[in-house]
């Protein structure tokens, strides 16, 4: 008989469970725990949504002025290099 997981053990494995990098036997235990423990089910579900909402964050295009100053800094560096 496999020993039951405690909630603490469940949380320790949660990240890898959500990334689907746990071994199959541990995965089965974790899945079983979520069906039996409403608290861990909620934590698991809301953590999954947390990750999802951050992954959906759009990278804003770099502001024109920031890009321009970066290119100017590169040019300055090159000019100094050529001179040297």
């Amino acid at each position, binding site marked *: 008989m496999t020993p039951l997981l405690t*909630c*603490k053990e469940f*949380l*320790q494995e*949660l*990240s*890898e469970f*959500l990334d689907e990098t746990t071994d199959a036997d541990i995965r089965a235990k974790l899945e079983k725990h979520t069906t039996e423990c409403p*608290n861990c089910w*909620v*934590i698991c*579900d*809301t*953590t999954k*949504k*947390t*990750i999802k*909402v*951050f*992954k*959906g*964050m759009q*990278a*804003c*295009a*770099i502001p024109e002025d*920031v*890009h321009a*100053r*970066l*290119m100017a*800094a*590169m040019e300055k*560096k*090159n000019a100094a290099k050529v001179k040297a």
Partner: protein
Amino acid sequence: MGLGIRLCRWRRLLTRIDNPNPINPDEHLLTCDMIDSLVELPAQGTQSGVFDETDLLAQARTGDTRAFSGLISHYEGKIFRLAQHITQNREDAEDVLQETFLKAYEHLDQFQGNSKFYTWIVRIAVNQALMKLRKRKTDRSVSLDEGIDTGEDIMIREIAAWDEDPEQRYSRAELNEILDSAVQSLAPTYRAVFVLRDVEELSTEETAEALELSIPAVKSRLLRARLQLRDKLTSFFKRKGDDAFAYM
């Protein structure tokens, strides 16, 4: 405009050219953007439609500044966002951005090519960003490898179910503010790991390499960061009228 959008437009454009019998009357005009995209593509170093940095890197190594500019165009947005996340300050982030590419250009001969170019510049950027933080908080040193924290307890403050797609309750601007302030509340050591793994979507191994941390340290920090953010976001995203508090 993102490269993806550009490519998508380009493909649409090619389909249209290939198609012998067009034309939906309100769809037959090429917009400037489409023409733009056609002209700009080769300059991005994309011949086949997929960004291939190998050639650009090889050229940049010989001192070809235009090739290096191609690399900058591809990665500057990500590096700037990363720097903003870690420093939480736009001015510092811009400094970090410049220092990162200047250093990368200067030390390009030291880039071995056994890691991805992106991971390499991320490592430079993270170091620069942490230096900024250290300078700002001279009283408190910021180090990524202080104490590996695997054993201690994990805090869960509130357990409440969220709606499906809870972010839709907020406008894009409101949402960005909520997410930014949540990230800002993390300790720098957790913040860097979280941003690389879950925002920039680097692998655990790449994150470990970029931050010079062990893989268990990355995993442990990621777990804590995710749970802390979950806690923060719960007050915004929990199901309305569902005030079930529970403590563990």
